[in-house]
């Protein structure tokens, strides 16, 4: 598989260098790391959603043989200060509470109250069971529609309101006129439920404070080791270079491991106080209970539409439930991305958008693969609802409104300038892959037999996160005396195959065998600073840095070779690590020859040539890079049981020039199935008292192999304005799939008069919707 712009390595489905160690059990995940003298931590957590802590008592726990310390909030207080993350900035320190342990009150069921440190994990858990925490329950804030006006019950009393963030809509008389004059105004409320990232490996870290070095070393299952370092250095008021963060293999993150969380802070502070290494490995129930939730939001949208189905304008009122200790960009800023991307791939000339993010006494919201993806859920459902209201075909309505190549550059209603995208083409490719017209005939025939089939689309544009601290990435490239190549980057790949894709770029541009490259990441003492792997940034920014260091290195190598071969650098070429005179392959030197000269015999270099072979670069992202895709899915709904079976699933993706098509398709597939799981199976449920009901894999249902369709792919390759022409696409699968599945189910049942607006859509909800429609 390759595209027309494929090179020797770029564009090829190169097999991954990560795989041999991971396939044989020789990866190094956080729980595989053991440090001499290491202690183990377990947390005592609140079993109430909201309450006052009346009394705590650690006497019995502390008496357990092997328990070293039981620490409450008050015990940690003297040893840390408020900290901040680079993406939010220093100013946000006090904007949102973030205390490592609950202090005087608890704010969600699962809120950590104490950390127990012991000789083994088992003893730490034994100790945790014996810690007495007496909580006086308070009424929890759970109803997101009432939270904003609640002045009595506050999730964070010191904030003074349950409103975490707000976007106001400016008065827009022009839009009012559009709505007043529009032949059709269609309004609907769309709800998305709480579902979560669920990496197969939970959170975990080892913190080791060595006061006599002095150095704080943290081994962390993170997506952003440099951010862990900055966060902890700020928290403990240590100089940044006295903190070293090491990241080995990480068992998935999907956004949940992008930011340092409260338990991790407590572990670091505990090590700092005790002067001993402390390890914490989150178990599955803790991960489901407290690692961070996502997706729970709803909106009421109105679309003004003309007789032909052309969208004239839209109004949206959006509400996000961000729980208690939400991570700022996903929490108080929950509405920002939803607003900016709501117009998506369509020409929606005018938009009014207001949003509130509200605190509740539930687990806080963290980023999860496309944290703003509700824009696609909302918009794509609305497009189908509008089509149905007008009696139009949903594919046709998309064709009428989609941004076409001839419209580019196109400025969206929210001010984003679209260039180098192909939404119209991806819509057509997806329709062709799924066999739209044939399916409509099949659907009609099935209905005769009282079988209910449906088809749905999810069409979107996907931005890479490049704002503020996310804008740049660095790379260092070294060729050592043996002629082998070491690529050192600030990335934090944890499944994205970066180790392979960055080597592809360097091998292509330097001209060395790919096997001669070793990739190093995940050690803040060695690697250039990076904001972390997330936000679909790697292919656009990290790849730019990798390309730049390779191009610079090639120049260095050719210059040295030219001097040694008494030739002009322009007459030389590099292939497979051999530098030869064009047209005369007999006159050649190996990379090793060049490296030996550069290091071991610098006297043989031309005067003024820098000895050694080292290059470094920092790449800056373009202001906006968008990929685009269209998902198309067909389903059959069993109207007796409410069971949904996904029949076929096709994705047309345009992520520009592909570095590794196999990896691109792997990223699409993973995201698609997360979205399918979200709509059909996954639901993080709280009861009316704020007790979580889904804290095991028996209750929180992930899709298995038996539930997934075979995914079909189509690729478009509109080059981006990045050095390699690549675009980010890691989040898209999870952005487009929920809308496609919901629309397909709604399409299947529309003929029965069933209205589908909300998720999840498990058998229970489908049967309820059928009953509500009198079926």
């Amino acid at each position, binding site marked *: 598989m390759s595209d027309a712009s494929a090179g020797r390595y770029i564009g090829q489905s190169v097999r991954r260098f990560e795989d041999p160690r991971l*396939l044989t*059990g020789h990866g190094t995940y956080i729980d595989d790391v*053991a440090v001499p003298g290491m202690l183990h931590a377990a947390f005592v957590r609140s079993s109430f959603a909201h309450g006052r802590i009346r009394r705590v008592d650690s006497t019995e726990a502390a008496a357990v043989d092997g328990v070293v310390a039981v620490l409450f909030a008050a015990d940690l207080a003297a040893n840390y200060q408020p900290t901040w993350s680079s993406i939010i900035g220093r100013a946000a320190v006090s904007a949102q509470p973030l205390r490592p342990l609950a202090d005087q009150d608890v704010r969600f069921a699962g809120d950590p109250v104490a950390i127990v440190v012991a000789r083994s994990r088992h003893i730490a858990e034994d100790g945790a069971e014996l810690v007495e925490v007496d909580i006086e329950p308070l009424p929890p804030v759970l109803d997101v529609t009432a939270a904003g006006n609640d002045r009595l019950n506050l999730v964070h009393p010191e904030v003074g309101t349950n409103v975490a963030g707000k976007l106001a809509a400016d008065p827009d008389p022009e839009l009012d006129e559009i709505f007043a004059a529009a032949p059709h105004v269609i309004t609907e409320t769309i709800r998305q439920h709480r579902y979560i990232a669920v990496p197969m490996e939970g959170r975990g870290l080892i913190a080791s404070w060595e006061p006599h070095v002095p150095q704080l070393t943290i081994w962390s299952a993170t997506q952003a080791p440099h951010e862990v370092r900055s966060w902890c250095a700020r928290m403990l008021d240590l100089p940044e270079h006295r903190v070293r963060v090491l990241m080995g293999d990480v*068992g*998935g993150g999907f956004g949940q491991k992008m930011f340092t969380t409260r338990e991790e802070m407590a572990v670091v502070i505990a090590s700092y106080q005790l002067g001993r290494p402390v390890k914490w490995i989150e178990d599955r129930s803790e991960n489901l209970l407290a690692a961070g939730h996502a997706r729970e939001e709803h909106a009421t949208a109105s679309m003004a539409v003309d007789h032909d189905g052309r969208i004239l304008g839209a109004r949206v009122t959006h509400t996000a439930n961000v729980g208690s200790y939400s991570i700022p960009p996903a929490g108080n800023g929950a509405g920002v991305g939803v607003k900016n991307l709501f117009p998506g791939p369509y020409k929606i000339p005018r938009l009014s958008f207001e949003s509130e993010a509200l605190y509740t006494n539930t687990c806080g919201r963290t980023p999860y693969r496309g944290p703003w993806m509700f824009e696609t859920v909302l918009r794509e459902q609305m497009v189908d609802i509008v089509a149905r209201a007008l009696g139009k075909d949903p594919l046709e309505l998309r064709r009428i409104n989609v941004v076409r190549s001839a419209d580019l550059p196109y400025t969206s209603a929210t001010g984003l300038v679209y260039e180098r995208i192909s939404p119209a083409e991806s819509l057509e490719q997806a329709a062709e892959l799924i066999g739209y017209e044939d399916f409509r005939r099949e659907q009609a025939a099935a209905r005769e037999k009282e079988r209910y089939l449906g088809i749905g689309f999810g069409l979107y544009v996907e931005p890479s996160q490049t704002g503020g601290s996310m804008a740049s990435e660095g790379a260092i490239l070294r060729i050592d005396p043996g002629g082998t190549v070491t690529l050192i980057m600030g990335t934090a790949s944890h499944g994205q195959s970066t180790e392979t894709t960055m080597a592809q770029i360097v091998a292509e541009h330097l001209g060395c065998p790919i096997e001669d490259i070793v990739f190093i990441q995940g050690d803040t003492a060695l690697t250039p600073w990076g904001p972390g792997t997330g936000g679909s940034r790697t292919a656009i920014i990290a790849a730019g840095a990798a390309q730049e260091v390779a191009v610079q290195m090639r120049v260095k190598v050719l210059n040295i070779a030219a001097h040694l071969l008494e030739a002009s650098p322009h007459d030389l070429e590099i292939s497979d690590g051999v530098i030869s005179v064009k047209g005369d392959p007999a006159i050649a030197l190996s990379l090793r020859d060049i490296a030996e000269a550069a290091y071991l015999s610098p006297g043989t270099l031309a005067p003024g040539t820098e000895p050694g072979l080292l290059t470094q670069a920092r790449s800056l992202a373009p202001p906006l890079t968008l990929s685009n895709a269209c998902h198309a899915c067909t389903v059959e709904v069993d109207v007796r049981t409410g069971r949904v079976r996904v029949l076929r699933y096709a994705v047309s993706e345009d992520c520009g020039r592909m570095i590794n098509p196999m990896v691109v398709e792997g990223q699409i597939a993973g995201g698609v199935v997360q979205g399918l799981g979200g709509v059909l199976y996954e639901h993080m449920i709280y009861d009316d008292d704020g007790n979580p009901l889904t804290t095991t894999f028996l209750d929180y249902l992930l899709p298995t192999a*038996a539930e997934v369709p075979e*995914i079909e792919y189509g690729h478009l390759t509109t080059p981006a304005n990045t050095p390699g022409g690549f675009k980010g696409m890691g989040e898209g699968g999870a952005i487009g799939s929920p809308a496609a599945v919901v629309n397909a189910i709604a399409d299947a049942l529309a003929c029965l008069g069933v209205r589908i607006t909300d998720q999840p859509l498990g058998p229970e909800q489908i049967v309820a919707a059928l009953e509500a429609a009198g079926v």
Partner: protein
Amino acid sequence: MNERDLTATVNGVQRSARVEARLTLADVLRDCWRLTGTHLGCEHGVCGACTVMVDGLAVRSCLMLAIQADGCEVTTIEGIGPESGGLSLVQRMFQQEHGLQCGFCTPGLVISVAALLADNPSPTDEEILDGLSGNLCRCTGYQGIIHAVRAAAAAIAGEPG
């Protein structure tokens, strides 16, 4: 503390330990014998990341007490490959078909697939999905994994004898 002696043949090597009765097989493999390729994804028997072979059967090492494995033959991911080193057919097909991304669930899946194909070298698609349904993966959407099993079965079928 209630401790017992445990002796088992692990990846062809006899190993002994004195272990707390409450420890699981996964605990002992990982913490006593440092065979950390066996991963714990849920510790309640659903995700399958901790799957190992005990006397030729795929079992969840988080649900089995270590002392229950006394006298047994245990094969972990570290021992599933050819003795000469390198990758087994199943492992090679996982790499070829991109059947892993973060790799955390992979050891359990490789063991489950090895057990499936040992039992049924030419599974139907339905049997493949059934055989995989006890292992959770969050990265791949199972696409590459399903392709890897098909490719491994095809390779077995193509092999002479």
